[in-house]
C-alpha cells in the first residue's frame, strides 16, 4: 500500500484495516497484529501504529485486552456499520466537491444515474 504523504498516516492505515474488515479479510473478534508488526508491515513509526489502534478503539471498531493485544470487536453488525460509515464519508466528500464545482443536488443525482 502506498501511503499519501500529506494525510495523517494513522488515518490511512486505520482505513486499510476497516477495508479488511468490510471485505471479510479480517473477521469480527479476530486478533489484529501488534503495533510493532503493523509498523513493520507498513514501514511506519511504531508510535503511529499504536495511534492507529487508539483511533480504532475510539471509533468502537477495536478493543485492547490488557496483555493480550488488540482485537476487532465481536459484533456481527460491525461490518455493515463500517461499510455504511465509509460510504457516507465518500459520498459527503464527493457531494462537497461537486457543489464546489457548482452542481445542484438534482444535477448530481442525474450524473450518477447516467454513470450507471
Amino acid at each position: 500500500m502506498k501511503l499519501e504523504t500529506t494525510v495523517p498516516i494513522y488515518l490511512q492505515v486505520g482505513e486499510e484495516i476497516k477495508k479488511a474488515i468490510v471485505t471479510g479479510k479480517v473477521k469480527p473478534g479476530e486478533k489484529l497484529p501488534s503495533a510493532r508488526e503493523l509498523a513493520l508491515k507498513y514501514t511506519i513509526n511504531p508510535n503511529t501504529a499504536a495511534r492507529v489502534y487508539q483511533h480504532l478503539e475510539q471509533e468502537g471498531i477495536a478493543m485492547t485486552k490488557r496483555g493480550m493485544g488488540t482485537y476487532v470487536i465481536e459484533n456481527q453488525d460491525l461490518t455493515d456499520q463500517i461499510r455504511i460509515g465509509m460510504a457516507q464519508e465518500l459520498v459527503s466528500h464527493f457531494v462537497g466537491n461537486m457543489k464546489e464545482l457548482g452542481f445542484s443536488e438534482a444535477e448530481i443525482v442525474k450524473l450518477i444515474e447516467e454513470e450507471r
Partner: protein
Amino acid sequence: MLESRSVSKSFFGKTVLKDVDLILEPGKIYALLGPNGSGKTTWMKLAASLLKPTSGEILYKEEPVGLASRKEIAYLPTDPFFYSWMTVQDVGRYYADFFEDFQPEAFEKLLSKMELPTNLKVRTLSSGMTAKLKIAATLARNAKVYLLDEPFNGIDLLARNQIMESIISSLNPEVTLVLSSHLVEEIESVIDTSIFMKDGLVAEVCNTEDLRTREGLSLTQKYRQIMQNRANLG
C-alpha cells in the same frame, strides 16, 4: 533523555552550529533534516562525544556527554570505518572488543535479515552491502541512544527497506533514535519529530503526524517551505 543546551561549534573561527537547543526523549524516532553543511553531522558528533562544543553543553541523563555516555550512545558515521581485510564476521568481533553492549547474536540476526553473508571480505562489498554492515554493527549494540548519520546514503530500494525495518525494530520505549538525512521522502513515514536545520541553526521542530493533521503538509513540502523561505529572507 538527551539535551542540547545552546550548543555552538566553530572550526577555525567558522561557526557551523549556533545555539542549538533540543530535548530528545526516549521512545521516539527523530530526524535531523537539512542540506549538506547545515550542521547535522557536527551535532551528532558532539552528542556522540567525538567533538567538544565551543560553548554550551550536551547532557545525557543530566550529565555532560563523555566517556560514560559513549557506553550508551551508539553513533553511525557516514564514512566507512572498517579495515578492508576484515570479513563481515571479523567486524562483529572488532565491535565486540570495543563495546561492552555489543550483542553478537543480534549482529548475526541483523545480518541474516538483511541477507548479508558473514564470510565476505569488507573490500569486496558493494556500497549497499557496506551500508548494511555498518547499520548491523551499530544496531547490534544494546544502546539507549542511536545516532545514525545518513543511513540511506547510496543505497538501493530493497536494501533501504531492509535497513528501515531494522531501524523500526530497534525502537522501544527506552530507546531514542536520531536519523539524519538530506533525502526527506525516504524517511517521511517513520519519523515522530523532525528537526529542521539550516546554516547551523535549528529552524523548526515539528511532529510529523501533527504536520499532516493540522497543516495538510508532507514533510517534504514543509522542508521546501522552510529551506526556501529562509533562503529568500537571507
